[in-house]
């Protein structure tokens, strides 16, 4: 398109119209660079605000779990551990469920209308605000799972993950509500990548006598894998940064515990809880924690984009 447009550039025009054209183009240019400015601004502001805490605690901040505004001792290990554990375990549950659902939607087990309704319903769920999910988690999910947690503790208490008496709000519930939030993301991205696999591949597999699931496992899933992986990574980024629902249900305790049945913390829930009332070096420490969270989600996101670009389907 570009070379064709150059034809029009050297032609005579009234001065004022030319100027408007130039102004219009440059305004658009400036507006588009706002994205970069905001992104850099966020990184720089959070980084510089965390410098004070960074110079005082250094990398020790990442591995100690003391968080004591009275003694001015800060370490975010509990929150970082909570962020990683809740996001990875929730993905572990979401991936089979989401991909299974996506396969169900893309295969022809049920009529197309039913599948389309299920598909758009799942997508609609992504639109429900997380604070509403948190409310639901507090009043519906928590009572519902109480007995199950007691059972887990009684029978699997020897596993460190279930070693403490279950409390009302705990990390396990946070994982479950994250599953509810991630399911629509993973399902819809997996469905899209499965749909993009050309029909020829399926027909070829059927033609040489492969059964339906042999075809899915050996042909279709491998072909859609990069897209699904990217979706999973995007979901991981979301899970790490997810704030409201997790804050409302995780119990918000900085006491470190391996157990999922005890209250925990994530970086974002710590920010949501403490930022409003913090002062002094606590603010800087919170910015430090925010910086860690930002780096984690940036790395995951950039990796996801790289994956999409590198392995996007070319048929």
């Amino acid at each position, binding site marked *: 398109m570009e070379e064709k447009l150059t034809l029009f550039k050297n032609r005579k025009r009234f001065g004022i*119209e030319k100027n408007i054209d130039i102004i219009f183009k440059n305004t658009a240019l400036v507006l588009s660079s706002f994205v970069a400015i905001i992104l850099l601004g966020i990184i720089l502001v959070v980084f510089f605000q965390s410098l004070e805490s960074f110079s005082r605690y250094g990398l020790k901040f990442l591995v100690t779990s003391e968080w004591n505004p009275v003694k001015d001792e800060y370490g975010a290990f509990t929150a970082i551990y909570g962020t990683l554990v809740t996001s990875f375990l929730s993905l572990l549950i979401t991936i089979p469920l989401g991909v299974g*659902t996506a396969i169900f939607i893309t295969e022809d087990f049920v009529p197309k209308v039913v599948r389309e309704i299920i598909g758009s319903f799942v997508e609609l769920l992504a639109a429900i605000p997380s*604070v509403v999910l948190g409310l639901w988690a507090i009043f519906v999910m928590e009572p519902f799972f109480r007995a199950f947690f007691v059972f887990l503790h009684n029978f699997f208490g020897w596993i460190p993950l279930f070693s403490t008496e279950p409390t009302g709000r705990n990390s396990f519930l946070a994982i479950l509500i994250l599953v509810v939030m991630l399911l629509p993301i993973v399902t819809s991205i997996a469905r899209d990548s499965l749909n993009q696999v050309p029909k020829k591949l399926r027909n070829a597999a059927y033609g040489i006598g492969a059964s339906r699931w042999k075809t899915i496992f050996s042909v279709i899933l491998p072909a859609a894998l990069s897209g699904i992986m990217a979706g999973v990574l995007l979901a991981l980024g979301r899970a790490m*940064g997810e*704030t*409201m629902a997790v804050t409302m249900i995780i119990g918000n305790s900085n006491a470190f515990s391996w157990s999922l049945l005890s209250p925990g913390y994530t970086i974002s829930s710590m*920010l*949501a809880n403490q930022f409003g009332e913090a002062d002094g070096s606590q603010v800087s420490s919170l910015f430090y924690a925010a910086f860690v969270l930002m780096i984690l989600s940036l790395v995951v996101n950039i990796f996801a984009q790289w994956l999409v670009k590198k392995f996007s389907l070319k048929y």
Partner: protein
Amino acid sequence: MNSLYYQKRLSRNIGDKFFTSLSIICALMAILPLIFLVTYILYKGGSQITPELFILEPNPPGDDLDAGGINPALIGTLIITTIASIIAIPVGVGGGIYLAEYSNGGAFSRFIRFGVNVLAGVPSIIAGVFIYALIVSTKILFGSMYSGLAGGMALSILMLPTVIKTTDEGLKLVPNELRYASLGVGASMYTTILKVTLPSAFRSIATGVVLGIARAAGETAPLIFTALFSYYYITGFGDLFYEMGSLAVLIYNFALEPYDAQNKLAWAASFILVLSILSVNICSRILAAFTEKTKRV
């Protein structure tokens, strides 16, 4: 002998049956709780709706049985999302125009598109932290700290990537013939964009923007320490510079209260929020499906 007929006992057929039922179970396990969730929110919230809800202020949590209404939060949500839209839509549409119409796939536009994707992945609470550092703690807005204005700015950061992306993609779908025709009859580039390409991409851009606004209306994390919360009616323009309530923050605050009356208010607010977000989503879906059909004919 019978190899032309379907054999149930064959291991591959048993395996196929097994995996088919497994995927059906997955789908059921995924969908049933989700259906339950939506109906529960709509039922539980819907049963709390009364006319006074829309008129009264919420009462401060306490032992009194009457929790009041959610008027300030409702108006606050409208104001804050309007502020966010006023900032994000011009910037986003302008940026999208540059990416789709002017850039030629060079390093700059690739960097911006990459930045849009990265910004879309930034956790929403980080946007709040950023605005807190930039505006709330510096009191740069005429000495006011927590304000509806700051909250709107935080939300606009979250809306921006959606708006740019939908503008960019909507404009890219406009056939080049339209541009050639317009330029060919002597229109300048900006006339072409404003009179030809933008109008023909208007519907898809508008759909994306509206969905972005709906998403922003439910965001809580960027508001809890930028706009904070307020129990009082919004009376005039000056209130923009003070703490402002919103439905999302009201749900967060009142869900954690130990009092039943406040919890009910939270359910009512969720009902309004979810119902409006879902109806916007469903409407835009129907509209998109409808336009697709008319285009094909």
